[in-house]
């Protein structure tokens, strides 16, 4: 298994260090930091706006850039959390809890250095795990049949919706709605038109970019625009004030490693993202601390662990996405789309036949993470200045990118109208507290699930027990059942509290 690890590393380095790819990586992480720093626009919207552009560049370069936006936004997001008490991106929400109190105590610099270090540690270990684990999973994935794939997707979708921050049943409902939206268009195996209502533009189905831009882009702007909750910015971050004391380092070291472990594990599960990883890492630190009352008042442990966790999770989330072709989060689903645009089918065969893409991407993570530390520490002043741009100036340009992005996928004005329609849907979902990320995940996995389900049923001549006869498929389904039970109990408990 490991015999050609070094060969692969060398191949990856040669791809990642080409001038072209270095520049795309720099562009990606810079843009990622920017959208991470800015509240009201996340990695997901940024990636979907840029997706049409990736038609015109090489697949490796496109993936390197997209991935840079993705993990770069975790670095940038915590800057806003610490300085403004406002999460710049969802996975950085936890950084507000102890990061902002630290900033208020005049230790903003230390907080920023701690998050950057924790992110680097988490990210690096995450990449190492990815490098070692992926070949193993690829070997094992080649033996999976349609039954296993179907059960694995059921498990992933349930995990993504049940272990989310809001109500589990609403998450599951959104997965189902997403699958239905994914089925719109011509059915691949029978050629029948489904849910097209005679509209010719719908025969190809919805584009994921259009869906993501509407659900996240437009809806996010409506919510952020008249929010008005912007704190005062702590501008006095000098390089000198950044140096953590020995005591800080001693306190932060172990939480960083624990956070990395938690994040790497949760991130690698199909369906669970780094936002959840950061929350769990925080909860663990508070539970095992000798003096839990310090948490929420600027405890450095409460900053180091979740930051390490979300960056480790960001990296390991690529494992199921690339080796199995099953995305763990909505952003990963977009990443898969980049590959499919270029006619590369993700999965075990891709890792073997397109080793340059896989290993080039993995090695670019190292470059990206180092670039991010440079971008975020010495240049933190730049990002602070970016934060002082009022949102009312910013949102028209975001909308311009949304519109042009949607139009240029197929040069179709109908797609732009669909963005508006999905924007209304997305805003309605927010009003009713329905999460949008599970919907996007269901949209991507839905058609694949139907296909695997069909194949399994054909193979077993219509016998449902085929999903329970195979041990691996059975264990995925048992975990799914446990998740459902857990979700039902969680809902039950919530009702008693209310």
């Amino acid at each position, binding site marked *: 298994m490991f015999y050609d690890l070094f060969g692969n590393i060398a191949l990856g380095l040669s791809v990642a260090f080409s001038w072209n790819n270095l520049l795309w990586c720099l562009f990606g992480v810079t843009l990622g930091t920017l959208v991470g720093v800015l509240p009201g626009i996340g990695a997901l919207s940024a990636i979907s706006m840029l997706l049409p*552009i990736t038609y*015109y560049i090489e697949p490796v370069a496109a993936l390197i850039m997209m991935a840079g936006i993705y993990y770069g936004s975790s670095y940038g997001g915590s800057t806003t959390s610490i300085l403004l008490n406002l999460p710049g991106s969802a996975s950085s929400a936890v950084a507000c809890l102890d990061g902002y109190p630290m900033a208020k105590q005049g230790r903003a610099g230390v907080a920023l250095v701690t998050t950057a270090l924790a992110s680097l540690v988490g990210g690096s270990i995450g990449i190492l795990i990815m490098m070692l684990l992926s070949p193993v999973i690829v070997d094992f994935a080649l033996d999976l049949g349609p039954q296993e794939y179907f059960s694995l997707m059921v498990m992933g979708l349930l995990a993504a919706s049940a272990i989310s921050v809001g109500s589990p*049943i*609403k998450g*599951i*409902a959104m997965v*189902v*709605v997403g*699958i*239905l939206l994914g*089925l719109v268009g011509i*059915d691949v*195996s*029978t050629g*029948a038109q*489904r*849910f097209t209502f005679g509209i010719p533009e719908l025969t190809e189905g919805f584009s994921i970019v259009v869906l993501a831009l509407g659900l996240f882009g*437009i809806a996010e*702007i*409506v919510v952020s*625009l*008249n929010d008005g909750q912007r704190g005062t910015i702590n501008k006095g971050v000098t390089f000198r004030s950044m140096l953590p004391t020995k005591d800080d380092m001693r306190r932060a070291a172990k939480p960083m490693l624990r956070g990395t472990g938690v994040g790497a594990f949760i991130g690698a599960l199909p369906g669970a993202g780094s936002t959840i990883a950061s929350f769990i890492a925080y909860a663990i630190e508070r539970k095992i601390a000798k003096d839990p009352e310090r948490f929420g008042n600027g405890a450095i442990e409460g900053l180091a662990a979740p930051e390490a966790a979300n960056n480790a999770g960001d990296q390991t989330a690529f494992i199921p996405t690339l080796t199995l072709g099953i995305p763990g989060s909505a952003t990963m689903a977009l990443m898969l789309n980049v590959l499919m645009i270029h006619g590369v089918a993700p999965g075990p065969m891709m890792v073997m036949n397109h080793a340059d893409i896989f290993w080039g991407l993995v090695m670019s993570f190292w470059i990206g993470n180092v670039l991010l530390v440079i971008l975020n520490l010495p240049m933190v002043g730049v990002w602070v200045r970016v934060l002082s741009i009022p949102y*009312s*100036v910013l*949102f*028209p*340009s975001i*909308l*311009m990118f*949304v*519109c*042009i992005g949607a*139009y*240029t996928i197929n*040069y179709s*004005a*109908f797609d*732009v*109208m669909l*963005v*508006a329609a999905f*924007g*209304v849907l997305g*805003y309605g979902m927010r*009003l*009713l*507290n329905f999460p949008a990320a599970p919907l996007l995940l269901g949209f991507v996995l839905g058609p694949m699930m*139907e296909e695997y*389900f*069909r194949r399994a*049923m*054909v193979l*077993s*001549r*219509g*016998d*449902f027990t085929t999903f329970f006869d195979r041990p691996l498929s059975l264990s995925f389904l048992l975990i799914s059942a446990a998740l459902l039970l857990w979700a039902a109990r969680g*809902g039950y408990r919530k*009702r008693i509290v*209310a």
Partner: protein
Amino acid sequence: MWTKDYRDIIGGGLLILLGVATLIYCLVGLRLGTFARMGPGFFPAALGVILVGLGLGILVPALSRGGEPIKPDFRTLFFLTAGVLAFAALIRPFGLIPATVVLTVIVCQASAMSLRAVLITAVALSLTATLLFPVALGLQVAPVNWPW
């Protein structure tokens, strides 16, 4: 505080409607097939049934508990949607610059911007869009077009 959780009553109700509509659509218009040879209607019909179940699971408990009122901001939503639709209508016949200008002018009504600021933003954005997309990236979008 509302006496009933109308947020979930509406949400659950809409899901039930969607589920029922999906089921009817599949039963009327699509072939269900058999387990061994599934027709195009089998999978969505099953999803429709699941949706009805989930909708009930959200709606029923909401009947017997209070809820926070919903505070919608339809004004902002209206201007953003109108701006995007206007862009969709103008981009092909009139080109990128007019579409971007109209988009900016409409969406800026959602925030309290002065007319001068709106116009400056509109000009700046349409120039950026032109320099970035057709010129730098080479996308096939005409900056200005005239349909007649």
